[in-house]
């Protein structure tokens, strides 16, 4: 990024991911409203200051029979009527795509203060129906149609591919699950924070933890979640003014230092075939991570204090570990085994609990990751704070490793 066109993250608000908005008889618009009003209050930003809004969402047309989501932003506050808004979709990476679009507009000098809302209401339908909706993040006709819960099966195959190339023991996947659930207990917005879960349960391989797709068991899966997250992104000019108004220095406001964004071929088989000679199983994901680091001027993962990654299944976190370069390719188990990923470990991964522990409202996840990165580098993450964190990196993935987006957030 050119000097003077940095994108600052002022902060934001996450709804409690344990809430079931269908049980509350709430419309999608209430979810958006609470997240945006919460962000205005938390950041002490007046609604009149917002110049534009980007909404990240995967499938409200399916889950809620509602499209045209950018327009719903104008319903939140009278001051928003007339604002330029839009909606972005890239399956589970929708939230990050919305952030990219908003950042690009700030870098281009079009606007100084933007709202980005990631949102998904998923508990409107049965598990099986929702599973089929999620199948549209794959090539539906080729990979998902007629298959019950297609995504656990696709990510089970990611584990199988690791097993084939490097060997993979399920106990390391169970340990990843255990860690995410444990961290979630420290996060007051995490969906699973009060669930009955401990190491013994996560490691259990019986009927209490049934298989749902190959080697993927229930405890290996992320959650079906209702949730929304709103963050405010600002230009340097606005951030300077904002910092002054809050009695802070500009250096205290986190910046998006780098970004990465790649899209691989849709079908899992094609991705794996393309990478057959590569050390990385999903080289485009690797490229997303390293290009974000490069843009941030960080040589490798040693320059990162913590990671919020996309653990839609334990296998995706297993993949992320070597793709971030925490270990050599195929050796992710070493980091799991050594305890490096714990909150007080060498390189904490998902202190929030990630998608498994904190929850996965699909279109909100990328924005939630950015907000958690903001909380970490500003020392406001409460019980799941990584001590002294100055730089955090996110990785948000849509489909079976198809669309990948990564941000490096620093202060």
């Amino acid at each position: 990024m050119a000097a003077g066109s940095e994108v600052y993250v002022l902060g934001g608000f996450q709804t409690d991911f344990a809430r079931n908005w269908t049980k509350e008889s709430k419309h999608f618009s209430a979810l958006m409203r609470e997240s945006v009003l919460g962000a205005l209050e938390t950041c002490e930003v007046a609604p009149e200051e917002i110049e534009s809004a980007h909404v990240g969402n995967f499938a409200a047309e399916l889950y809620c029979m509602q499209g045209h989501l950018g327009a719903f932003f104008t319903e939140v506050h009278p001051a928003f009527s007339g604002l330029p808004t839009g909606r972005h979709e890239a399956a589970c990476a929708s939230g990050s795509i919305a952030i990219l679009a908003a950042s690009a507009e700030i870098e281009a000098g079009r606007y100084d203060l933007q709202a980005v809302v990631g949102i998904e209401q998923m508990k409107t339908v049965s598990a099986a129906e929702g599973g089929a909706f999620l199948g549209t993040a794959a090539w539906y006709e080729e990979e998902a149609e007629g298959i019950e819960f297609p995504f656990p099966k696709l990510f089970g195959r990611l584990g199988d591919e690791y097993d084939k190339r490097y060997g993979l023991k399920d106990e390391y996947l169970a340990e990843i699950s255990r860690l995410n659930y444990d961290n979630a207990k420290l996060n007051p917005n995490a969906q699973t924070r009060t669930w009955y879960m401990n190491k013994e349960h996560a490691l259990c391989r019986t009927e209490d933890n049934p298989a749902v797709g190959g080697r993927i068991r229930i405890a290996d899966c992320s959650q079906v979640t209702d949730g929304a997250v709103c963050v405010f992104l600002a230009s340097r000019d606005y951030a300077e003014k904002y910092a002054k108004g809050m009695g802070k220095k500009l250096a205290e406001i986190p910046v998006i230092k780098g970004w990465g964004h790649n899209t691989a071929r849709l079908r899992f088989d094609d991705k794996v075939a393309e990478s057959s000679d590569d050390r990385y199983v999903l080289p485009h994901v690797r490229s997303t991570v390293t290009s974000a680091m490069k843009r941030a001027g960080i040589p490798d993962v040693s320059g990162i204090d913590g990671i919020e990654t996309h653990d839609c299944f334990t296998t995706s976190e297993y993949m992320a570990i070597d793709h971030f370069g925490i270990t050599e390719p195929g050796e992710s188990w070493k980091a799991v085994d050594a305890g490096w990923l714990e909150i007080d470990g060498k390189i904490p991964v998902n202190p929030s609990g990630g998608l498994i522990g904190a929850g996965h409202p699909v279109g909100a996840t990328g924005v939630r990751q950015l907000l958690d990165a903001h909380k970490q580098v500003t020392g406001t993450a409460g019980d799941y704070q990584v001590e002294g964190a100055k730089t955090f990196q996110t990785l948000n993935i849509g489909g079976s490793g198809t669309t990948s987006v990564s941000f490096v957030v620093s202060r």
Partner: protein
Amino acid sequence: MSSTDSLTPTRIRELVRSRSLDHVVVLGANGTMGYGSGALFTQAVPKVTFLARTKAKADEGLAEAIGQVRSPTVASRVETGDYDHDLERAVGEADLVFEALTEDFAIKKDMFDRVEKARRDDAIVATVTSGLSINALCDGRSDSFRKNFLGLHFFNPPNVITGTELIAGDDTDPAVLDYVDAFSRSRLGREMVRTADTPAFAGNRVGFKVLNEAAQLAEELGPVLVDRLVGPYTGRALTPLATIDLVGWDIHRAIVDNVYEKTSDEAHATNELPAYMAKLIEKGVLGNKTGAGFFKRDGKARLVLDPVSGDYKPEAEIQVPALGYIDDVAQLHRQGRYGEALHVFLSAEGEHAAIARKVIAGYISYAFHRVGEVTDTINGIDRIMGMGFNWAPPSVLVDAMGKQAAVEMIEGAGLPVPANLAEAARTGAPEHLFEHPTINPGRFFVAG
């Protein structure tokens, strides 16, 4: 009853590390609160002993515990036994003895005689009582027993409801209290509220006052209309009379009779059990557990009690006024416009809207009047009503409608305005009465 908020995250971590809690003995493990709490302890404690009158009963409790949380962890951490063979040994080894016997003073007293002889001097003894006095339960016991004795009141079912009351006796060691508070928060995921040793503590004192007032109103208005008037739109998932059916009429009577007998507050009359309930309880009407209460099922149809005659009529035959304002309020809640929704409620015309406002005004007035008596601040009452009852906490309602509007609603209902609320309305401070960094106030407004 100092505020639980004084425990910072760092202090909580220090406290949890300050001693070990590796063995809990649950007394009365076959009862609902016994096995529910027992299951909860297995989340964080490596060994939990379930004791009951017979080993078979303790085994039944274990089976229920496993069924409640669906995890193999429970079985691998629990041993079962009976009072005759296992109590002295198990209690002698325990770090925490958790008493969940039936709510009978004499039965608990006899059990504590045995516990007192068998326990280690540093073992904590907790009771899950919801009605008996903590001071009375440990009266006359040794210094070490009284120092280590406290009330730890989980709500049923504890794996779902996180709100928990912590009650000190006059002699409870503050360090023990802080430890149990910190452990329950950080290892058991509890929302801890410290209350005074007053009848029904904080949650049941405020909650059952509202439930009982609804039951009183049902005599004239009928159960269907009352549950509509004090329904989800007023900030609760479950309607009041359905709640009494779920809790059990006998439990309801025990709580309100206890409060009525031992208190004489400004809303005393609302805590008097309606005569028709006393009469029907004698006939075995106890709510869901006996298949009949304010409501009963007849196949797919719901039958509704006529409190005067004691007969049941199909719900479809019961006429209820239109009450269009409730639909308007619900629609605004549905879109997350909670403040506007409450203003429609406040300005709704007609006698029925006025009755509903009187119940909600009574709830707010009663809660704010109890500050200083049952908790130090309104925050404790707010948190137990939110996380123990799943009702909109009084302060959430006041914040959403505005402090002055809340005062006017209470005045309009002919009820006493609490001085603390009047002061907040006059000064405008604090800006938000509901103080919780992470609870979304919107979760309590149900649009159904």
